[in-house]
């Protein structure tokens, strides 16, 4: 027994077995099944095993598909830019301006706690703020900025992006903070001694060294936004669509083959994006 466990290959595989079983059962098999079902046919009442391309033909033949994919990329791009800006600034403040480790940990935890609470409730909590008679409208009206309540605050693309930024900025803060904390402080001192200004230090020293963290944060934010369907549905009041909603609509109509075909294309898109991003960062080295 000891001898078998000492064997690198067998011992390693035995230890990894539970993990591999879970991933094969609940990740690999479901993906294979989705690919298979995407070639099936659907009637009003049931789905029939077949090998037809009609789900894909319909998907690529419909102008809605391209619009929805474009919209998905738009959400991802805008959310990415905003979360990067906010996340980098917050991480920079925590890593370079807070001087004691106790305070760093305390403030960092304060930023991460919302991540461990419910996303649905955090979305709901925008209603009293953004609603027609909500805090934002009342405040703006009492300041005399606007005369009538703004209708586009809740249930709009604005609300969708706001919720994305609210939910996912954390995924930028954590990896960027993590890489910043590993920057050797003497490099910054050296740059200052050599006469670099604050902006030059930021641009030529800190940002290049923080790139791996930025890449990991980008992977999180982009995949979370591209795969989302519930934020878009809730915050747009069902007025906007992204690919996730296209899939969930098909599912609610029991049109599984069509949902599966859309899912396959979405998965390929996400994997291609991640594949490109992974060329810039070695995740295992950065942990």
């Amino acid at each position, binding site marked *: 027994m*000891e001898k078998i*466990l*000492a064997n690198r290959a067998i*011992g*390693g*595989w035995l*230890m*990894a*077995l*539970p*993990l*591999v079983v*879970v*991933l094969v*059962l609940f*990740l690999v098999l*479901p*993906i294979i*099944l*989705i690919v298979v*079902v995407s070639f099936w046919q659907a009637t009003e009442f049931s789905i029939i095993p077949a090998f037809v391309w009609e789900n894909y033909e319909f998907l690529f033949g419909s102008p809605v598909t391209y619009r929805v994919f474009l919209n998905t990329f738009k959400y991802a791009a805008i959310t990415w830019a905003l979360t990067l800006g906010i996340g980098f600034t*917050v991480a*920079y*403040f925590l890593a370079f*301006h807070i*001087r004691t480790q106790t305070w760093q940990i305390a*403030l960092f*935890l304060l*930023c991460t*706690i919302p991540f*461990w*609470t*419910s*996303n*649905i*409730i*955090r979305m*709901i*909590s925008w*209603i*009293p*703020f953004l*609603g027609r008679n909500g*805090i934002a409208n009342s405040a703006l009206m009492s300041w005399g900025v606007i005369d009538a309540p703004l209708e586009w605050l809740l249930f709009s693309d604005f609300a969708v992006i706001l919720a994305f930024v*609210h939910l996912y900025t954390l995924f930028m803060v954590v990896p960027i903070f993590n890489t910043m904390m590993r920057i050797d402080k003497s490099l910054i001192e050296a740059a200052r001694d050599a006469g670099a200004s*604050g902006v030059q230090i930021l641009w030529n020293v800190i940002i290049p060294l923080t790139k791996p963290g930025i890449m990991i944060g980008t992977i999180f934010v982009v*995949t979370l936004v591209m*795969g989302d*369907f*519930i934020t878009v549905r809730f915050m747009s009041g069902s007025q906007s669509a992204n690919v996730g909603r296209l*899939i*969930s609509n098909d599912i609610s109509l029991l049109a*599984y083959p069509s949902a*599966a075909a859309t*899912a396959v294309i*979405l*998965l390929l898109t996400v994997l291609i994006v991640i594949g490109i991003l*992974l060329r810039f960062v070695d995740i*295992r080295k950065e*942990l």
Partner: protein
Amino acid sequence: MEPRSRSFYVLAAFFGLFLLFLYGPTITIAILSFQGPGGGLTFPMRGTSLHWFRDLFEQQAVGDIWGSFRRSFALGLMVMVTTVVVSVMGGLAFRKRFPGSGMVFYLIITSLVIPSILISLGVGLMFSQSGMTVHWATSGFGSQLTWTLPFGLLIMFAVFNRFDKSYEEAARDLGATPWQTLRHVVLPIIAPSLIGVALFGFTLSYDEFARTLLTAGSYNTLPLEIFGMTTNVTTPVLYALGTLTTVFSLIMIGVFLALAWLGARRRARAGSDAGDGLA
């Protein structure tokens, strides 16, 4: 110490605004959940009362909230324990750099980046096509693991990357068996990080929505129940429920953080060097 620069105050103000942005809405609904009986979903407050909380406890017109809470809690504990055990074993396995570990690593990354609705759809299809019924404790449990395990493993990778191998070598030189080394040297050193893995396992499961949507079956978990309420409940009872489960989450987070802190303090007092292997 050099004096604070002007940029410190600008950044501190930005950070304060960010915290307000993070917590403001949650605090708002916490306040609004104490609306008087005639109050609506937004300000002004029409008196203060516990009316909406009483509503939650008394009538069940809003659905099976307490049943769904019990299920979510049980599922959270199941996912937590499984995530900790499987992540530790997986983390140990990856240290051996077994053949094929690269492929398993890419599976973990795929599990992390795959849109949640694909897991929901795929697992739902797998169960229905093979004639099994979906249930929160089987299909729901497995689907949630595809989300919690990558986080658990990423934490374990980070821990083992900073692990000083000389502790193990010392134990082995003193004649410890592989099991003794694991039990008395490795596990005590990584124990604090396991509290972190457990925290992720529980909270990510307790709040998970998309992956349980098609895999929970006829008995809803709490997030599904709450989302169902958003379409037909238009009273502050929704806020009261939101406030209660957020308070519950905060208590759980507090318990985990307190455990981590107590563990660190006990070790410091006992003068043990366990944990020094962690950078």
